[in-house]
């Protein structure tokens, strides 16, 4: 007798379009969010907020209502939705260029207010959609189209460690940094995303998950080489782990 062990999540549209480049971890990240929405039974009352960047196409993928926010303002838009409809589950799906650069003020202040929102941040150390410019999380020495000799701390500063920064905020209930470079880390990432949604369901505060992702096109690597880079130099600077967990304490 055959037993079904995996199927596409129901929170993904039947005619979904994955617009991402071959081997991009965005596709895995959206699937994990959808699987968590299915498992927690939240699909019918969830509203997503997409940002500007590769995550802009969320409305083609998620089978939930999606609002498109201005560049960097996802957390502000999500605040408005959550306050006007407190019984809904609101999540934002953002890239690092959106959340940590232009949107850092909105992000920090929404978390300082302790808004009950779940935030998923895809950190790929570059601006993927616009052609691979240096972003706030670009590693020192990384070659991008705007740091052609590698990022130099004298002129371009240092990479911003988002999780370490946001864990200090009292309104935040859950902070974790995860990667998607192997089946094992994908399962860990799913647990963290689930915790971040539970933080919102239980009304503990903001849940935040930073996902170390690949951008094979702009890194000019194969998907396999890009995963090696995540395991190597990226994990040395952005150390994966759970940084704050009020959810497990509350259970």
């Amino acid at each position, binding site marked *: 007798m*055959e*037993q*079904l*062990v*995996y*199927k*596409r999540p129901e929170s*993904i549209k039947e005619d*979904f379009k*994955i617009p*991402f*480049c*071959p*081997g*991009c*971890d*965005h*596709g*895995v990240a959206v*699937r994990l969010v959808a699987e968590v929405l299915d498992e927690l039974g939240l699909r019918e009352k969830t509203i997503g907020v997409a940002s500007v960047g590769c995550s802009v196409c969320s409305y083609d993928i998620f089978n939930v209502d999606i609002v498109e926010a201005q560049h960097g303002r996802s957390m502000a838009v999500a605040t408005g939705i959550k306050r006007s409809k407190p019984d809904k589950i609101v999540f934002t799906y953002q890239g690092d260029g959106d959340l940590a650069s232009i949107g850092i003020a909105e992000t920090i202040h929404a978390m300082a207010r302790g808004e009950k929102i779940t935030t998923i941040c895809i950190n790929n150390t570059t601006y993927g959609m616009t052609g691979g410019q240096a972003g706030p999380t670009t590693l020192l020495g990384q070659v991008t189209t705007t740091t052609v000799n590698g990022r130099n701390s004298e002129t371009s500063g240092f990479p911003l460690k988002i999780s370490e920064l946001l864990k200090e905020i009292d309104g935040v209930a859950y902070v974790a940094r995860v990667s998607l470079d*192997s*089946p094992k880390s*994908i*399962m860990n990432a799913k647990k963290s995303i689930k915790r971040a949604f539970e933080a919102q369901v239980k009304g503990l505060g903001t849940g935040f998950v930073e996902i170390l992702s690949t951008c*094979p096109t702009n890194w000019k690597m194969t*998907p*396999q080489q890009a*995963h090696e880079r995540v395991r190597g130099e990226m994990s040395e600077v952005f150390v994966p782990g759970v940084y704050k967990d009020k959810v497990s304490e509350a259970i």
Partner: protein
Amino acid sequence: MARIVLDRNRCKACYLCIDACPNKVLCVDDNVNNLGYYPVKIDIEKNCVGCAMCARVCPDMAIEKVYK
């Protein structure tokens, strides 16, 4: 018997599933798909144990279902 259901027209040829599969069930197809890539195809189906590793690493959700 364990098996996977593959949607070859969603595959974008990153081949992460071929690396993830512990039993070498998948290989590269010789014919292009609707997107213009050489997708993966099922090579030795009897080796499949239904671990769903391929489905978990696939960024394009090209593996629709896994049966065990």
